């Protein structure tokens, strides 16, 4: 028994049964007894994403900052991407998790195109699928630390949906993540009260205004951003947009006592 290098597992008394001196994983249980622990905090993260439905399409915007805690580390991170002609996805939260899920989705789209036996993924299907994935991950205590906004078309109807890391999912006409929920969504709702159906230009102006306010107020925001416009014709992504010139910091001159 005390022969070095030889343990009891080399002489199986019964297969799959308990081994003296080791933890026994009862059958039917998940892998929760392994004692392994998964990362439960984001490292490089992105801040708010804002989206709204307008008359003739859906628009999504997200800034291009990857924050490392309070350090504005990566200033040209693309957090918005086109999935198919009918869907675009933007995520806030952990950038690594976003890049992972982006690779998975892009491969999925490739498989669908190559297989030829199924239809192009639309925004509603992507939203449903993402909800199932994120919910199942959280149920295994191994979440993808993301808050996603899915925008696009589902069966000729404009679609805008939100999914987050615990699997909460809903559809709405205006959606935002993080600080956007507190600043941008009320702004959009106020504009909609005045005019129900926004035109493309009005929507773009409103979205840019929301991002500007977020840049003023959210410490983890940046002035470089991306904007996606999804219409029945397809998805257009405008990269490298900059709202620095539209911002007004004159008020900084009047603040004293914080030097």
């Amino acid at each position, binding site marked *: 028994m005390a022969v070095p290098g030889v343990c009891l597992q080399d002489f199986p008394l019964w297969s799959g049964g308990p081994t003296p001196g080791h933890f026994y994983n009862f059958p039917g249980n998940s892998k929760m007894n392994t004692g392994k622990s998964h990362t439960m905090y984001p490292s490089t993260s992105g801040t708010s994403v804002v989206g709204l439905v307008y008359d003739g399409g859906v628009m999504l915007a997200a800034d291009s900052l990857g924050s490392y805690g309070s350090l504005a580390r990566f200033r040209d991170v693309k957090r918005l991407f086109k999935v198919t002609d009918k869907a675009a996805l933007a995520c806030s939260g952990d950038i690594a998790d976003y890049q992972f899920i982006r690779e998975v989705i892009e491969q999925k789209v490739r498989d669908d195109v190559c297989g030829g*036996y*199924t*239809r192009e993924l*639309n925004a*509603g*299907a992507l*939203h*449903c*699928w993402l909800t*199932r994935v994120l919910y199942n991950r959280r149920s295994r205590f191994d979440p993808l630390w993301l808050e996603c906004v899915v925008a696009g078309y589902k*069966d000729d109807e404009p679609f805008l949906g939100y999914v987050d890391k615990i699997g909460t999912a809903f559809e709405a006409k205006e959606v935002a993540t993080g600080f956007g929920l507190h600043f941008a969504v009320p702004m959009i709702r106020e504009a909609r009260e005045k005019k129900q159906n926004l035109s493309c230009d009005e929507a773009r102006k409103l979205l840019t205004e929301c991002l500007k306010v977020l840049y003023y107020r959210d410490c983890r925001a940046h002035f470089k951003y991306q904007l996606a416009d999804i219409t029945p014709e397809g998805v257009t992504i405008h990269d490298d947009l900059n709202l620095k010139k539209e911002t007004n910091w004159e008020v900084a001159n009047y603040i004293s006592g914080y030097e």
Partner: protein
Amino acid sequence: MARRYDSKTTIFSPEGRLYQVEYAMEAIGHAGTCLGILANDGIVLAAERRNTNKLLDDVFLSDKIYKIDEDMACCVAGITSDANVLTNELRAIAQRHTLQFGEPIPCEQLVMRLCDIKQAYTQYGGKRPFGVSILYMGWDTRHGYQLYQSDPSGNYSGWKATCIGNSSAAAVSILKQEYKVSETDLHQALLLALKVMSKTLDMTKLNAEKLELATLVRNDNKTEINVISVEEVKELIKEHEQKEAEAEAAKQDKQSGSGKSSDK
């Protein structure tokens, strides 16, 4: 001898054949006939009902036609117990897709998934193939109305009209002659189905008790899969017989009118 290569599915014969798969198709050749016809505005599935014992309790409306999903139904020919396993799996596949994507599975994708399972049983595992051929009728936003056929080898193809089971070859040749592509509407397809069934089934007169008919149509953005009731089948048979009588009469007239009928 060929016998040596029969027993295992997972090996080829020297002539490059998979005997077990072929034997499975033989088994289906003895089963009740099923035929499917694609019309402009719908699809028809017709099947020969073999269990017509009076003592049978009618728990199921149909013993060969199954609804798989809101937009798809299928008709099976072959070993019934195998068919039950496969239709169950088809329903589960469809629901798994709807759970993941929130929308109905495209028809071809469902057929393909099941055929991959069927093919696995011809390549590994050492188990025999499923002795079932299936005709699928369905509608989706990709291709509209579709009719597919799959067999024990795991092969599938899309059809405008086809037949499986007993006397299927004869039925397919009749369909080849009679089916008019893109000129057939649902009612004509129903009558054509009855015509083919009457010619290939070994009964002199069509009996509503021995037939199962089902249709799939799209109405108001909703798919309706309807197994036709016995009364309606009786009506259709009456109409079919009437048309046959008229056609016979027209043929007689033509023969006597041409004046060359006494050449025999």
